[in-house]
Structures are given as C-alpha cells and as structure tokens.
C-alpha cells in the first residue's frame, strides 16, 4: 500500500515541505498538494509539454516525475520565472506578440523557452523549433510562439533573466 510521505524541496527559491501520496506524480503534487496551478496537465504521458518544469535546472515533464523523486531537489515552475514584478523576457514577448490563444500550453512553453535561452542565449529559429518540439499547441500554429522566443533572445538582459 502506498502511504503519505513528506517531501522537502526548494520550490521557486523557497525551501518547501509538503505531504504527498507515495504514488503522486510531481504534476499532481504541484497542483493538488501545493496549489501551484500554473503547471498544466495536457496529456499526462510526456507528449505535450504543458507540465514542463525545471528540475535542478533541467527541463522535464512533471507528469513523468514522481513527487517522491524531488526530495532534496530544486524546482522552478512557471510561477517562479518572474522576479517580484519583473517578467522574464519570454513572458514579455509572449504578451506583446499575442503568442497564445486558449493559454493551456503557455506555461509549458514559457518554462521550456526560458530554459532554452538560459542555455543558448542566441538560438537560431531551427534551434528554437527543435527545442520546443516537445511542446504542443492546438491553437496558435506556433509561428507567433517562435517569433516571441526569438524576440526575447534579442533582448539584452536575457542572460541575467
């Protein structure tokens, strides 16, 4: 029988302890135990990227991580991208470019694109498309998203974002 476990992790810069079921995914724990609703469930099987988060700085799908696995780890969710009132560049350019419609895919794209720009501050369009291949959007047709990410890369303060 699975049981209740206590998980300690640094979430969006805050040391956090939470109670979870041993069989919870990280996605379930974030949404149902911690109330961090920014991370979305699309497919729940690794294909859509709506649940993308950074685990120890690496882009992962929270639906394919067990909550128990993040004990001792560092996590960043979409809620943790902006610092105080300052959006990171991809958040700004998504707004300016209107790179979303229904918005369900947006948190995943923001987290994934932010991770891309931290690793490759000046990506080519092809790099952006490959990097984001694991994020699906049923509404926008992708072009505005790609343009927004390339715009964000042009902003000088990206590397410090």
């Amino acid at each position: 029988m699975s049981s209740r476990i206590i998980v300690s992790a640094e979430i969006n810069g805050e040391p956090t302890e939470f109670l979870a079921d041993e069989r919870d995914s990280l996605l379930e724990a974030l949404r149902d135990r911690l109330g961090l609703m920014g991370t979305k469930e699309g497919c729940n099987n690794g294909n859509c990227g709506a649940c993308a988060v950074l685990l120890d700085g690496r882009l992962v799908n929270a639906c394919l991580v067990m909550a128990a696995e993040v004990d001792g780890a560092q996590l960043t969710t979409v809620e943790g991208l902006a610092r105080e009132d300052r959006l990171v560049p991809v958040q700004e350019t998504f707004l300016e470019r209107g790179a979303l419609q229904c918005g369900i895919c947006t948190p995943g794209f923001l987290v994934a694109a932010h991770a891309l720009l931290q690793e490759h501050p000046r990506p080519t369009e092809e790099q952006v498309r490959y990097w984001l291949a694991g994020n699906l959007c049923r509404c926008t047709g992708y072009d505005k998203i790609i343009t927004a990410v390339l715009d964000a890369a042009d902003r000088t303060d990206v590397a410090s974002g």
Partner: protein
Amino acid sequence: MQDLRYARASSVAEASRLLADGGPTARVLAGGTDVIVQARERTQKISLFVDIKHIPEAVGVGGAEGGGLTLGAAAPCCHIYDDASVRSSYPALVDATSLIGGTAIQGRASLGGNLCNSSPAADGVPPLIALGATAVIAGPGGERRVPVATFTTGPGQNVLEPGEFVVALEVPAPAPGSGVRFLRFIPRNEMDIAVVNVASALRLDGAEVAEARVVVGAAAPTALVVEEAAEALVGRPLSQESIASAAAAARAAVRPIDDMRGSIRQRRHLAGVLTERTLRDAARRARGEEVASHP
C-alpha cells in the same frame, strides 16, 4: 496511478536487495519516461519503484579504466550529449541521445532504460550494438557482463533475471580509423517512434574496410545485426557497389511488421536507404570529417 511504493537506493547492493525483496512487481525507476507511463496506464502490475539515480555508478558519464567510456545506466540523455568526450569520440551516441523524445524527455530518459524497456524500435540500442557496448549487470548472484547485442531477446524481453539490474554500459574506445553513425526515419523531425533506425560502424585501413557492423532497428523483434552487410563490405575498398550490396543485404535480412507507422514494404526500403546513408557518414567520421548529428 496504481498503488505503488517508492524507494531510493543509494548503492548497488541496496538496489539489488530492494529488487530481490520486492519480487516480480518491483521495477527499476531510471528516467521514468517509459515506466511511469506504464504504471499509470496499468499495462503492467507494479508495486514498487526502485530509484537508481542516487547510485553514483548508475549515473556517472566518463572515461573507463584502460580507455573507453562508462555510461551510468540511468544517466539522462542530456548528460550524455553534453559530455565533451562523448561529443568528440562517440558522436553516434550524440546522434541517438539528442533525438530520443524532445528536450524534456532527454532531461530524464536514460540509455539503460531504453535498453531494459526492450522495445524493438529503441533508438539507443542500435548505436550501442554498433559501438560494441556491454551491459554491466548486478544482482543477487553478483556481477556479470552481457553484450548489448544479445541483451534483448524479444519485444519487451531481455536477459535480466529476477533481482538483476543494469548498473552501467561500457563502450570500448574507438579504434583508430573507425566511425559510427546512427540515423532513424520518422514522419516528422522529433517526438515519434522510429519507423526504422540504423547504426553502422566502419573501421578503415587506408581505403579498405577492415571491420564493419550494420545494425537495423524497428524491423524485426529485436535490433538486427546484419552479418551479410558486413561481409559485403569487409576486405575491399568502400565503394558505391559495396555500399549498395550492404544495403541489399539489410533489405533481405529484415523481418518487419505492418503497423500504423509503416508498411513492411516501406520498412524494407528504409532499411536499405538508412544503411547506405549511415555507411557513408560512418566512413566520413572514420576519416576524421565532421558529420553533424542533425541537419
């Protein structure tokens, strides 16, 4: 999600014990990109996940004693393709690890998991076989080594005995004049399962082929080492004709199925095309030329 427990092993011995005590429904958790989906969809009964990512030997990527490369079985793809020695000396591993899933999958998925899941279409397996890799297995009976070429015995089946798991994959140092290339065909550029995939290895002695290995995946119950392709190549200069004979041998050797991803006819054709392309690129790498993993 089915009712299951999670245990974190910090040593090889602890993982072996947890797996042995847990019985047949205890399963290794590496990157979880196959097994968490299987547990959730209840395609298999799983009662315990044994997380091996906190065992140093199972996650390291680095030089082995006496040359060669040791890959922790649970090392994620991103650590493999980011490793400088992998990039310079084992580019075929970059070919494979950088196209398994997308970026977020590559942050977790391991080659040990790819091998142990034992899908006929696994993208990590043909390049490991072409490179001559060996699986280091730990279990109740101690440690043993099995070549990756004979590890998988059928779809979803392999040589692991109860309580055993793969700790690491050992890849021999590339011989001078050798090159390996992996390519797959899917209907789009990323995020799909191979219709066919092929890894080819060549060792050139001057213009002549001294050694060759052609491995075709997704075209038989397990990845297929096409001996006849090697025979068509070895002992003669690499030429248009010898490459064409190797491709014909690959087309003849495959035993593909028809499914939603491709027909038997298409898979047979692809086995030939990818054999030709991988051999040409392997030869370029063998001559020290740069061949990018992706366009």
